[in-house]
């Protein structure tokens, strides 16, 4: 009789050899970097210099390295926010919007109850962030469950509405008075800020993110619900005929995903900014989507990809400073990476269930 672990290793949801996977990721990035380098060179810039500068800064200096981790934290959250719904076949491009609304609700909690002690206020803010994100995700998934609108496009549209709502509040009811410079909310009280480690900017959000990643991994691999969700994602018609409540899972997966994105928003404003500013996200939600696709929803892959992408986006700052290119140019590299994965050259063989 085969043991439980033996059975598990054979049916395990992500069935692969680690070495193969790492090689695969390396190959993807190599191709993408080369193509990106060519484009930069055609534009008259020096790609080698840019890459060298980036790597030296991010991996060579403690300050640079800690900044990479800081950048990685929200990506962990948003990648899971996309990964979980993708298990049931939903494409959640709305992590960006969910992040904004989560930040808004969390900020409201922080500004409304600044005198609460940290052990009460922080969980309250987290809860508010979760709620805000879940709410913003509920509308698209409800529309999808009713067969009205494809969630890809509804979440995309709501990504344009959410920052506007946040701006409305920051310029309006939540605005800090007497500040002559950029519009923002008043600074959060000390108890509203996630504590940081060892004098760096790396904050508690990292631990929370890793925890959620671990829970995601366990649920999908071992639990009954993970199994049913994978069935829904693998073949919704079969799942439905077999009695699995697909509408329920669609809504749950999407709302929990949205909640996690909302938590990303809370973690950013509480751990880094200590206030709510308009348009504070450089596209964390979209980057999270990218990471999820590159990693195929695999938790380890998400961890690895978030780290690498965080290094790359640090390179974006460098691109701006040393090469005089707008930060947005970095999207080309990210796009090429996704393109290479989608083009499925024969040496990447991948399946998911």
């Amino acid at each position, binding site marked *: 009789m085969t043991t439980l672990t033996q059975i598990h290793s054979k049916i395990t949801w992500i069935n692969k050899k680690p070495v193969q996977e790492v090689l695969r990721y390396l190959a993807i990035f190599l191709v993408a970097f080369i193509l990106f380098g060519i484009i930069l060179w055609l534009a008259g810039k020096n790609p080698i210099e840019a890459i060298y500068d980036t790597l030296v800064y991010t991996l060579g200096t403690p300050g640079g390295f800690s900044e990479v981790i800081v950048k990685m934290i929200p990506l962990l959250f948003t990648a899971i926010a996309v990964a979980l719904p993708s298990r049931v076949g939903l*494409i959640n*491009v709305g992590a960006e919007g969910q992040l904004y609304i989560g930040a808004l609700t969390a900020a409201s909690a922080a500004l409304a109850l600044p005198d609460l002690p940290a052990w009460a206020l922080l969980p309250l803010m987290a809860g508010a962030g979760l709620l805000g994100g879940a709410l913003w995700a509920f509308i698209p998934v409800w529309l999808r469950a009713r067969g009205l609108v494809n969630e890809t496009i509804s979440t995309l549209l*709501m990504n*344009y509405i959410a920052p506007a709502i946040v701006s409305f509040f920051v310029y309006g009811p939540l605005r800090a008075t007497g500040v002559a410079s950029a519009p923002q909310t008043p600074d959060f009280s000390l108890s509203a800020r996630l504590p940081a480690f060892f004098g760096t900017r790396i904050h508690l959000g990292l631990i929370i993110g890793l925890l959620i990643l671990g829970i995601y991994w366990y649920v999908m691999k071992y639990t009954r619900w993970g199994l049913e969700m994978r069935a829904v994602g693998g073949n919704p018609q079969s799942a439905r005929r077999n009695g699995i409540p697909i509408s329920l899972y669609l809504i749950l997966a999407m709302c929990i995903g949205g909640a996690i994105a909302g938590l990303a928003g809370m973690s950013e404003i509480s751990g880094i900014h200590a206030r709510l500013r308009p348009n504070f996200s450089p596209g964390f939600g979209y980057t999270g989507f990218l990471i999820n*696709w590159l990693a195929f929803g695999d938790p380890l892959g998400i961890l690895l990809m978030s780290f690498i992408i965080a290094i790359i986006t640090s390179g974006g700052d460098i691109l701006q400073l040393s090469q005089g290119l707008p930060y947005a140019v970095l*999207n080309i590299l*990210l*796009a090429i990476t996704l393109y290479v994965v989608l083009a499925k050259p024969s040496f990447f063989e991948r399946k998911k269930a």
Partner: protein
Amino acid sequence: MSLLALLGVLSSAIYSGTSLLYTTLGEVIGERAGIVNLGLEGVMLISAASGFAITHITGNPYLGILAAMIAGGLTNMLFGYLVITRKANQLASGLATMFFGFGLSALIGASYVGAKIESLPRFLFPGLGYLPVQYTSQFKFDFLIYLVVPVALGVWFLLYRTRWGLGLRAVGENADTAYAAGRNPHLIRYITLFLAGMLAGLGAAHLSIVYTRTWKEFMTAGRGFIAVALVIFSKWHPLRAIAGALLFGGAVAFQLLLQASGVKVSPFLLDSIPYALTLLVLMAWGGTRKHSAPASLGRVYHGSE
């Protein structure tokens, strides 16, 4: 509201709706062949930046429009390679194209932010000169605007009166059947995407070269997605798309009017109107989607062995 103001809204609607209509027409034919392109946003951005840059370099807006069309067609070919030959998921491929457009347009347009260009001449439709000037002054349009409805008619003619158009529609309904009829679904889809890309390029050209006469990062502000929604609103029919584009152009115009007239509504909430309206339209038309959409929309065609 006075007649003048009403006409102003109409004129504004036509101005902002034209680029939307071109793009929507392109997406109509693309979706009729079974391909949904969420990367339209990226395609438009690249075209807008290219068109603007060429216009600035050569001083010739017509060359800029041509550049925009070619850029749009080529970008769509990149997208097409993924979804047709590599058989990748259409939604994800569209998003990859979107990212690509964000980045490449920023690169192309970097040196041209804030630049000034020669735009297209605007003129009154011949024969309307005898109407009072106060009314007609708002209706001086460039040739792209005058051309858009004939182009829509052209698309209709292509789809419903030509053999090739019938084949295109068949590919979008059931590519296997089209193949059994002796057509080449892959080739048809590539050609369709190229045409669609050129139309999107026209729309983007109108946006950067005529409507705003500037280049700014992310300047299309979601128009690519609104176009995808408009295709659903028009039930995949090119002539109905005209009404849809006018409606949305009107929403944008209405928003500008409200802002200009000093009404006390937050500009941010006003900015949300086009997207919220799109969402509402999608909700209202959602049920019909299943019955009017091309049967194989979004499905990967694996070809025959």
